């Protein structure tokens, strides 16, 4: 290649990619951002009333990844044949400009400080022996204090609504008592409680827990962010999770970052551009650029650059690393290699509580990021000693807007009718008078849970699919069961007429047919030791120093919180160190 096309290439136009592109153009670099999906704008995808359509939205999944082009294969154990994930269900990856950031819900957490040093924390309290055999428990290699300015920055860019507990060491409000210290308050005041959320708040208090409002990237007021991008107030329309927000109230790359970026002459966005691989030079230690397929013409195009940012989402990042030969693929048998290691997810179970029929829960009213939670059983906030498991789980009411098709498909089962007249009666009663309560918990990493390339199935471009080897393990199942048992006193305090407390069961394998979350993590994790992490603490590849890999792939464990706040903070953290150190003298930021 003779001519350099850009200083930096960014792969993927979601939150991670948009933040990196913004930071790098601010540093004066020319940036080309490549997105496999099409151009997307809220004025089109979010237009009222056509966007207020459950069938076309969350049911037919028009904004999500089109699996006909590429998917993954899944198996539970190493001795199984992995089979293709042919229909979207368990997780819903994004596609198109904005990525999943266009249609996420907006729960915008930071991190529990102890989760960043979970291994150290567990060992300090309970000793090395407490960690079960086969669990790859690791620290991130970065502290909460180091990340704090970047959490703060992300909240200001996202226009996050919330109530703080402590700012600069001083108690300022009724926020989460388990939160780390903050340098500033949330940029917007807290969102209102729905009826279900206020009911949960009162009952959780009565049960002796410490409820707090979920931090929400749904704007409680009109807001202009530091990039000059504007948001309008959220009206709890309820078409939030899985939809583009017609009121410009839910933070998205499309509303909160890209309008500023698109005005920068140093920035170029190419959509319908599916990146096939990162090209490396003969040393295999330096990237020269990327090759992508122009999907409309099926033409392969090569672009060269000094710096390559992978921000294609957690498992797509790992897939691209494996296809490109970045780092050594993880082998669970010899326990060597790092690309694909520590693949993690999240445990989630949804319980239901019925109120007397005089109470209407109006579940269609809601916003994706809004709700009330307790952290009494999350992270290291409780004594694990007598319990014998690692991890934890927040419990919450997060009424994002329950719509009728989803409610109808989900009603019944577990011995109750799924069709017929009795089913109809139960559906109506459940829709009108019940409350959903989730235990949304951690998932630890295990030696035999990982990502690699599938030997059989290929994508539409002829490349091997990514293979997931994943199942629920005893530690996480017991954690989930313990936390779900703590919902019972809340249900009682609510005056429940009936409760269906749902938990994982011993030996239950991961099931690809039912939605869990899209909070997949790990596979190319950050850390301090190149033997056990693919990336250093600045999310720079240990092996190819001009490649940074930004996303939840960096998480060594799946945490109880939703990931995007952490992804955004890590994106700003990595960008800061690229700007202040790497660009002055390109090369490894940490010596291996």
């Amino acid at each position, binding site marked *: 290649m003779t001519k350099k096309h850009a200083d930096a290439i960014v792969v993927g136009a979601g939150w991670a990619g948009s933040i990196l592109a913004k930071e790098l153009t601010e540093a004066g670099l020319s940036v080309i951002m490549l997105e496999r999906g099409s151009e997307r704008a809220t004025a089109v995808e979010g237009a009222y009333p*056509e966007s207020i359509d459950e*069938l076309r939205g969350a049911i037919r999944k028009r904004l999500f990844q089109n699996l006909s082009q590429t998917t993954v294969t899944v198996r539970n154990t190493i001795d199984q044949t992995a089979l293709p994930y042919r*229909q979207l269900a368990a997780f819903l990856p994004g596609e198109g400009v904005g990525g999943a950031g266009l249609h996420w819900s907006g729960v915008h957490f930071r991190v529990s400080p102890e989760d960043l040093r979970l291994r150290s924390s567990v060992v300090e309290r309970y000793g090395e022996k407490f960690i079960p055999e086969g669990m790859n428990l690791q620290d991130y290699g970065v502290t909460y204090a180091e990340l704090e300015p970047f959490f703060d920055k992300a909240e200001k860019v996202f226009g996050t609504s919330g109530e703080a507990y402590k700012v600069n060491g001083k108690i300022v409000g009724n926020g989460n008592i388990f939160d780390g210290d903050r340098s500033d308050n949330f940029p917007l005041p807290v969102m209102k409680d729905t009826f279900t959320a*206020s009911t949960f708040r009162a009952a959780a208090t009565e049960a002796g827990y410490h409820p707090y409002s979920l931090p929400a990237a749904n704007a409680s007021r009109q807001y202009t962010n530091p990039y000059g991008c504007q948001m309008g107030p959220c009206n709890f329309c309820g078409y939030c999770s899985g939809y583009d927000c017609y009121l410009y109230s839910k933070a998205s790359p499309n509303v909160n970052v890209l309008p500023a970026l698109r005005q920068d002459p140093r920035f170029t966005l190419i959509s319908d551009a599916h990146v096939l691989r990162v090209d490396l030079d003969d040393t295999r230690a330096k990237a020269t650029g990327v090759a992508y397929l122009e999907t409309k013409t099926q033409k392969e195009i090569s672009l060269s650059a000094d710096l390559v940012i992978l921000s294609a989402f957690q498992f797509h990042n790992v897939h691209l690393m494996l296809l490109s030969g970045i780092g050594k693929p993880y082998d669970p048998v010899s326990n060597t290699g790092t690309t694909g290691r520590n693949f993690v997810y999240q445990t989630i179970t949804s319980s239901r509580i019925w109120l007397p029929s005089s109470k209407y829960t109006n579940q269609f*009213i809601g916003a994706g990021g809004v709700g009330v939670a307790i952290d009494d059983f999350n992270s290291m906030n409780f004594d694990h000693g007598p319990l014998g498991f690692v991890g934890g789980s927040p419990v919450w009411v997060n009424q994002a807007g329950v719509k009728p*098709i989803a409610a109808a498909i989900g009603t019944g089962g577990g011995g109750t009718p799924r*069709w017929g007249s009795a089913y109809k009666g139960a559906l*109506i009663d459940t829709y*009108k008078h019940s409350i959903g309560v989730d235990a949304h918990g951690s998932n630890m990493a295990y030696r035999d849970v990982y990502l690699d390339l599938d030997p059989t199935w290929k994508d539409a471009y002829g490349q091997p699919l990514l293979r997931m080897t994943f199942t629920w393990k005893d530690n996480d199942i017991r954690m989930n069961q313990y936390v779900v048992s703590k919902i019972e006193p809340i249900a009682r305090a609510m005056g429940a007429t009936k409760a269906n407390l749902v938990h994982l069961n011993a030996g239950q394998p991961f099931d690809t047919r039912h939605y869990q979350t899209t909070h997949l993590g790990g596979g190319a994790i950050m850390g301090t030791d190149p033997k056990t992490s693919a990336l250093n603490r600045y999310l720079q590849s240990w092996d190819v120093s001009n490649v940074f890999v930004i996303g939840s792939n960096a998480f060594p464990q799946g945490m109880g919180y939703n990931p995007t706040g952490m992804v955004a903070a890590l994106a700003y953290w990595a960008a800061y160190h690229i700007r202040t150190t790497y660009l002055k003298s390109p090369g490894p930021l940490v010596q291996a």
Partner: protein
Amino acid sequence: MPPKEPTLTRPLRRSFVKGLLGSTSFWMVSGHSHWAEALAQEAQKPYQPTFFTPEEYRFVEAATERLFPQDQHGPGARGLGVAEFIDRQMESPYGHGDNWYMSAPFVQGPANLGYQLPFVPRDLYQKGIAGLEAYTRQQHGKSFADLRAPAQEQILTALEGGSVSLGDIPGRVFFEQLRTNTMEGAFADPLYGGNKGLGGWLMLGFPGARADFMDWVNQDGEAYPFGPISISGETA
């Protein structure tokens, strides 16, 4: 015949026309009796399926009504136009499995690893209906639609429980396809042919496309006071 799928940015032409019919200007120009009659006539004309054969359509109407029967709670699948909805969906990209990964080989495995058949929804219906009709004739000597409700229920229970095989496809797979599409047809916006008269939404107290609850975020357990409205502006 109205178009089958809305484009990304515009509502169906049919819904646009309906919207016009309901608007004041049209109302004043043409007079009440005219448009009301026209609408009533349109509603009375039976829908002509384009994907299903008349026999298949009779099956879909009968089976979906059993899954979602008219009862004390409100209308059933037949009254809500669920069969029309499914017929129209079969002609849409969804009917062709447009966003399913359909590359070979097709290897069967444990149920929890998901759907692994080489069939898209259109195939599932054609094969499923043929298989179930054959089974019903063999068991009862007549077509599913001609059986009495208890016998239909028995067959659907067996299908759901996995004890009926329909040639190429497991009975359970066909059952889930039918159940899912039935619920979609009962509760999707009427734009797609089901949820006639917003009857599905009325049963649940769901306000449809209102999508503005600024003043109703928390009414301390009172029911939301307004009825549903559809994307085209239809109210109930």
